[in-house]
């Protein structure tokens, strides 16, 4: 019984192994910490400022530069820019995460069904995917944000004009294609593996094979795609807000509409642009690095190059 005694190491789960690899990716670790801090300050702004985003500081001047009372200065209505950037960040982060989650779920399901079933179902689903990819994103979003004002049904289905729900719904509708394609590709190669055949030989149903045997093996690409979608959604939301089709600036600041409000003051009051600009760039950069690290950790076989 010599061999029986040899086994003392604790079982190493794939997630534990992935975590070990992730910790070695220094840039991703730093990005993760920075993102945690950003999240903390954005959702608990009282840690950094006592002002509210829509509160006018009557003691302050319009377009004031950085000071102790207002580290990022004030805007045209004497509101604290720091408070507006932090509370605006809530919208950006919420939209980013919600859009990424919803679109990845849609994309993974579409990709998985297309890849697993194959045949005409696959062709049909992939042609629809191609169609969605061919639509110019900003143009269709701008058109669709106008729908709720004109049609009651659009307001109930998509959300009211200028609301966060509307932006999330619309973005999610146009963010699932990449995930669908990637998941389909992974499933196509996975379904030829013998464990799928074995599962079938041992009586597993299609649904069970798909949900229990195939999708868990796609977790790597799905998670990576999730982070990349967060970054892309944050940027698109900012662009929409900047163009004035996003969340209404009168009630709720966002990084996009802060930039939009500051665009006339680029030369006279550059601090107005810098604060939301840096917030967007830093967040997106960190999310992308995090995705990079996750890719290396979850899919060690893949080359460390970015598509």
């Amino acid at each position, binding site marked *: 019984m010599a061999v*029986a005694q040899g086994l003392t190491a604790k079982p190493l789960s*794939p997630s534990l192994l992935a975590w070990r690899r992730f910790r070695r990716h220094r840039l991703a670790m730093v990005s993760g910490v920075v993102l945690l801090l950003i999240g903390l300050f954005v959702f608990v702004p009282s840690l950094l400022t006592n002002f509210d985003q829509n509160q006018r500081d009557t003691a302050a001047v319009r377009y004031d530069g950085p000071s102790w009372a207002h580290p990022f200065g004030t805007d045209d209505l004497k509101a604290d820019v720091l408070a507006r950037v932090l509370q605006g960040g809530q919208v950006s982060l919420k939209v980013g995460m919600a859009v990424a989650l919803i679109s990845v779920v849609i994309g993974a399901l579409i990709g998985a069904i297309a890849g697993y079933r194959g045949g005409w179902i696959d062709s049909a689903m992939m042609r629809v995917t191609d169609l969605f990819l061919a639509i110019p994103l900003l143009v269709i979003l701008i058109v669709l944000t106008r729908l709720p004002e004109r049609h009651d049904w659009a307001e109930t289905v998509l959300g009211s004009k200028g609301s966060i729900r509307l932006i999330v719904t619309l973005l999610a509708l146009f963010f699932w294609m990449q995930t669908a394609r990637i998941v389909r590709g992974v499933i196509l190669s996975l379904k030829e593996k013998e464990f799928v055949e*074995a599962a079938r030989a041992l009586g597993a149903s299609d649904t069970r094979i798909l949900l229990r045997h195939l999708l868990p093996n796609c977790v790597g690409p799905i998670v990576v795609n999730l982070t990349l979608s967060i970054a892309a959604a944050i940027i698109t939301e900012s662009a929409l807000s900047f163009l004035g089709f996003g969340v209404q600036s009168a009630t709720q600041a966002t990084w996009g509409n802060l930039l939009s409000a500051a665009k006339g003051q680029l030369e006279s009051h550059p601090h107005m642009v810098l604060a939301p600009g840096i917030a967007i760039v830093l967040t997106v950069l960190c999310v992308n690095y995090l995705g990079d690290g996750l890719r290396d950790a979850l899919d060690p076989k893949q080359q460390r190059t970015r598509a």
Partner: protein
Amino acid sequence: MTEVTRPQPLASTAAAMRPSWSADVAPGSGAAFNHPMPGGVGEVVLEVSDLAVQFRTEEGLVQAVRGVDIEVRAGETLGIVGESGSGKSVTMLAVMGLLPRTAKISGSIRLRGAEIMGMSAKEARSIRGSRIAMIFQDPLTALNPCHRVGDQIAEMVQAHHPQFSDRVVAGRAAELLELVGIPQPGLRARQYPHEFSGGMRQRAMIAMAIANDPDVLIADEPTTALDVTIQAQILEVMRTVQEQIGTAIVFITHDLGVIARMASRVHVMYAGRGVEMGSVLEIFANPLHPYTRGLLSSLPRPGLHTERLVPIAGTPPSMLHPPAGCAFHPRCPMARDACTTGDPPALVAVQDARFSACLFADELIADTWAQR
């Protein structure tokens, strides 16, 4: 001693295990856990008759299986031998109902007398893994890398017996791992496939396949991907398992050595048809089909002072256009005009419990091959 792999004598575990299991199963539902038949060979459990499988391809109709009759009896090990493309795997995939939808299947497949061909997908699923199970060639890819081995076995049990709690099936998984000779089964059950060696993964696959005490266990070249020492261990495990649960094993292989060790009866296939059938001893001693003779001549046999191994001349026929008459005639040293025309000759009884599809089997009987 290094004899680590041999499972514990299971009298204790098996006896302790079975009542607790059968108690939960409605009495009389033989489908769930049939009673083991130690040593004995019983009634016919699997009967394949006149099975034909065709695949439509761009080049034409591939006739992978062209009329196969196989009978498997409870508790026995039937070997199916043949070279690649002889239809042995396709036959068994047809039995499992795992052929792609494009395959055209005809004939009849009966499991304990009940026709299982043309069953609905749902019915077929309930049979797969509970009454017929299969293990595959490559153990490295046959387990799902992202679930614990024990969970995969437990899932197997629960898929067919949803009434059992997670704890019960987890215990059963560990028992099964022990049955296939995996040391520290409780710990091993919580590990992932990447922590198992190739041989251990094949053991785990066997554990999964026998989880529901199948009537028939189909093994499609289960040792081909393993090295020789591990091969021997796996064969030993399969034999032990068979003694314990009394399942019939259908052993598909092109390795005559493995057949000699494992099988009691052999079915030799060539070009999608059976060409010879009989007990393993008799077939090895005196094959009654030229193809079987060719196979055995190309096999090194210790103690026989043949100067050179004799390969079979030519190549296997294309199954797009199988030759008329006996499919082996283009390569057969004994071929005559009668072999080249008409329908392919059927397997007929030529001696007691010996079947050959050779038209001139009589001459082979007269020619005492083994004495050469």
